[in-house]
């Protein structure tokens, strides 16, 4: 049995990706083949249980498993589980990530370091661990959820943007390593998307930025999910980063 893995899939953009995949699996989309959804969460068990119940009610059996990108042991244990339970990984959607925002000049070295360890290094560790299973799927897809901040920068998000920029670079590096292995590696860089994370912000933080976008509005998690799904199909898109940001004009 093949697995389709979505990390950090219980809320926000990750949840929209999971829902989109569930619908396509139910519809038996030939591009995905026979596969089982595996969704990871970090700490919020209630969200995980709610997701599992929602998927069950749709008729989808999924594994909803805990995994923390900040812990090498947790990542390795998850990879071990995947190797034990699945013959191949058809798709890996690296969505999980944390933030550490604020004034750069007053940030702690420790806080910055921890974000690099989890968002970037942890994601790379997970992906490298799953590479043998991705190779076995033939074809397979890896999608990294980066950020518009990692493409053109954003004040107050230096470490976060650094990790997301790093993922964009790793997308290119991995695609280069996977040449002729039928693994499609790409990234998606969302701009302001209406998630719980953004809902907590004062509108003054994002309204001027939305004003600079061609569409002049916030995106929906489903907008990102739609692009991610498109990247799971084998094709001629490789090693690239697609911005889903409403057309920022800068």
């Amino acid at each position, binding site marked *: 049995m093949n697995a389709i893995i979505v990390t950090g899939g219980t809320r926000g953009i990750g949840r929209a990706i999971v829902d989109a995949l569930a619908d396509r699996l139910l519809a038996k989309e030939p591009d995905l083949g026979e596969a089982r959804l595996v969704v990871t969460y970090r700490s919020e068990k209630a969200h995980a249980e709610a997701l599992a119940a929602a998927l069950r009610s749709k008729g989808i059996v999924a594994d909803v498993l805990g995994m923390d990108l900040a812990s090498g042991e947790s990542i390795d244990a998850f990879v071990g589980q995947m190797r034990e339970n699945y013959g191949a990984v058809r798709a890996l959607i690296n969505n999980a990530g944390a933030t550490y925002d604020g*004034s*750069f*000049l007053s*940030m702690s*070295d420790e806080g*910055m*370091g921890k974000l*690099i*360890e989890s968002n*970037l*290094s942890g994601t*790379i*560790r997970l992906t*490298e661990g799953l590479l043998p299973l991705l190779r076995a799927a033939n074809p397979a897809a890896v999608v990294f959820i980066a950020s518009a*901040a*990692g*493409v*053109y*920068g*954003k*004040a*107050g*998000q*230096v*470490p976060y*943007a*650094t*990790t*997301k*920029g*790093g993922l*964009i*670079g*790793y997308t*290119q*590096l991995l695609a*280069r*390593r996977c040449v002729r292995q039928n693994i499609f590696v790409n990234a998606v860089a969302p701009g302001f998307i209406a998630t719980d994370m953004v809902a907590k912000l004062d509108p003054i933080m994002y309204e001027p930025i939305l004003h600079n976008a061609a569409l002049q509005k916030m995106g929906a998690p489903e907008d990102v999910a739609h692009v991610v799904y498109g990247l799971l199909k084998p094709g001629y898109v490789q090693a690239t980063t697609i911005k889903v940001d409403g057309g920022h004009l800068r």
Partner: protein
Amino acid sequence: MSNLILHGDGPIAAALASRFRAQAHDVRMLPLSEVVDGTADLKAHFEAFAASGGSYANIYIDLTEGFDEVAEFQADSEAARIALERRLKEMLKALKYGAQHMARGDGGRIWVLCYDHSVSFSVKAPSNPITNYAAMAAVQCVAKEIAHFNVTVNLFMIHPPSDTVEAPLWRQARDSLHVYRLKYKPQSASQVSELLHMYASIGQLSTTGGVIPVGSGIAVCNF
């Protein structure tokens, strides 16, 4: 005028230091601590320098030499990942403590030096796409935050200088690009350092958060 070059082990840093010294400018070279041996302490260095009345006009964070991510990940992805983690932590610390130092003084200029990773498709040269994109994102963010302190931060994306690549490889690369009517014109480290020195000499620098391509032919940043 005092200048600091961090991790400046390559030919570009050496040539740049020579140019500054030829003008009787102070140049100090320090390792990016954990990239080398974990002994240097940037924060302490900046504090001691400021306490002695010193102030840097230019700080260069040289990420061109000493590592090759594509080769390292191919050889041992675990070791490569750990090295990458250390390198980016040190880069952020260097940006932070350097910017703090300049913000507390009269301002200044921070420059990050990277080798254009796309060149390695044509010639055998270090290719560091992860560090490069991480550094570009960091520079663009930091610039937005510190401009009001009169501190600028820009990144040079440099084609590896001719001195670091065997001549036949450049010829081969040039010929293979003929179809596009774009040809590599390899530049020496000395020529590259002249350009960097020119930027340092501009009286009123009007760019910050910039990614500046340096090299003739196809460069990763020029489209």
